[in-house]
């Protein structure tokens, strides 16, 4: 009984662990963990590649506050987020 519950839990957690983790601070800053690279970077939009989808952050005066292997922080006036499979 317990083993079944553990399996269920593992099955539900695994897909989540593979997904990027996104954290928004209002509409001024966004932290994306698990990104695989920046595809496009302009003042109005930043497209970030994750394994499963492409995340587009649209807005005004967007800056890459910090970029490293594991995470990137985008600051500016964020107007929309779009997920493309």
């Amino acid at each position, binding site marked *: 009984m317990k083993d079944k519950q553990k399996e269920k839990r593992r099955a539900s957690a695994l897909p989540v662990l593979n997904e990027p983790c996104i954290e928004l601070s209002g509409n001024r800053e966004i932290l994306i963990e698990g990104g695989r*690279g*920046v595809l496009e*970077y*302009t003042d109005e939009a930043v497209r970030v590649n994750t394994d499963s989808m492409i995340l587009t952050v649209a807005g005004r005066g967007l800056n890459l*506050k*910090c*970029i*490293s*292997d594991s995470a990137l922080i985008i600051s500016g006036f964020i107007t929309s987020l779009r997920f493309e499979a």
Partner: protein
Amino acid sequence: MLLKILRYCRGYVGFTVSGKYPERFLNITARKNIRLWDVQRKDDGFTACMYRSDYRRIRPYARGAGVRLRVGIKRGLPTVIGRYRGRVGLVIGACAFILAVFVMSLFIWSIDITGLDTVSRTRMLDDLRDHGLYIGAFKPAIDSGQVAREIMLEQKEIGWMAVNITGSYASVEIKEEAPAPEVEDISTPCNIKAKSDGQILRIEAMEGETKITEGSGVIKGQLIVSGVRTGEQGASRLVHAQARVYALTKREASFSVPAVSKSLVPNGETAVRKSLLLFGLRIPYRFGAVHSPYSVTSQVVRSPSPLGITLPVGVVNETVSALEYNECELDNNSAQELLTREAQLYEAFSLSDCTVEDREYTLDISDNVYTLHVTYTCVEDIAYQDPIGTDENTDLTPRIVPTEGDE
């Protein structure tokens, strides 16, 4: 803030990336664990910052990404050190300055004393010096609490004292002891007697029986107001007599001065000595001396006092005036003038509690000494209290026990 300090310590560069695919460059640097920050989009690329050490190894990656890099700014400690690497003197000077500031902060620079009323400032500074607190004293060796406690124990005039040392500035706060008010004895039985001969002008008796009438003469020690009161029924009791007795008195004083006197006077020769005052240390830099064996020295210390705080540096000017013995012979007029001045001083200080009605001066000379005899006619209070000699306010009335039939 901490991040900024760390970045400054490691040193960083701000650079411009231009080329066809600047995003590629971003991805490569991220993959190689090179941290970028403050990335801002420009026309054909972007500007960003990275650590100085990382910038050295990104050139091949930039070439691979097909972008051009151009350094804009260089900031941080390594940059500053690199800039002044050739100037050893500057570095030594900076180190010496820091060291000097550190060393100087270990000493007392200024002492401020507040709350002094009757105790003189010079005496207090001397006391503080005796207990180790002075300009130029080594700060860690001073126990401010102990200094305050010891001075409070030694000086009875000081009721409370605190020594606060802030940086190199010592603030001494003092509250002087309030003297206990004199308690007037109004219970001990006493008489009022005359303390000198004189003629009574007026008697203001508050308590006791007056034995002398106004206008009569009294001799020293004579009873004026008695402390033994007799009631209407003949009963007597002892009281604390109180009275003011104003009388006309005569006082005599004489003042003398030798006709030929020898005194030390300045002969006009002066010399100036100067020294530099540096943290309690006096370094003389100008020497001067006079030929006479007798001299008098006046000293002026000039120290800068910005914001009311006297700094422990300054210049001490000493003026030495030579003195020599001068023999002068007095004539009648100058002797009279000199002795009259002395008599006036005597009158001002010794006869301050009486009104001088008249004074007579007589000058004579004998054995080369001028003597001025002065007779003062004064109006003064000649009353003094003389205790009767019992410890208690005894009722001297004989006790009469009422008997039956008495009305």
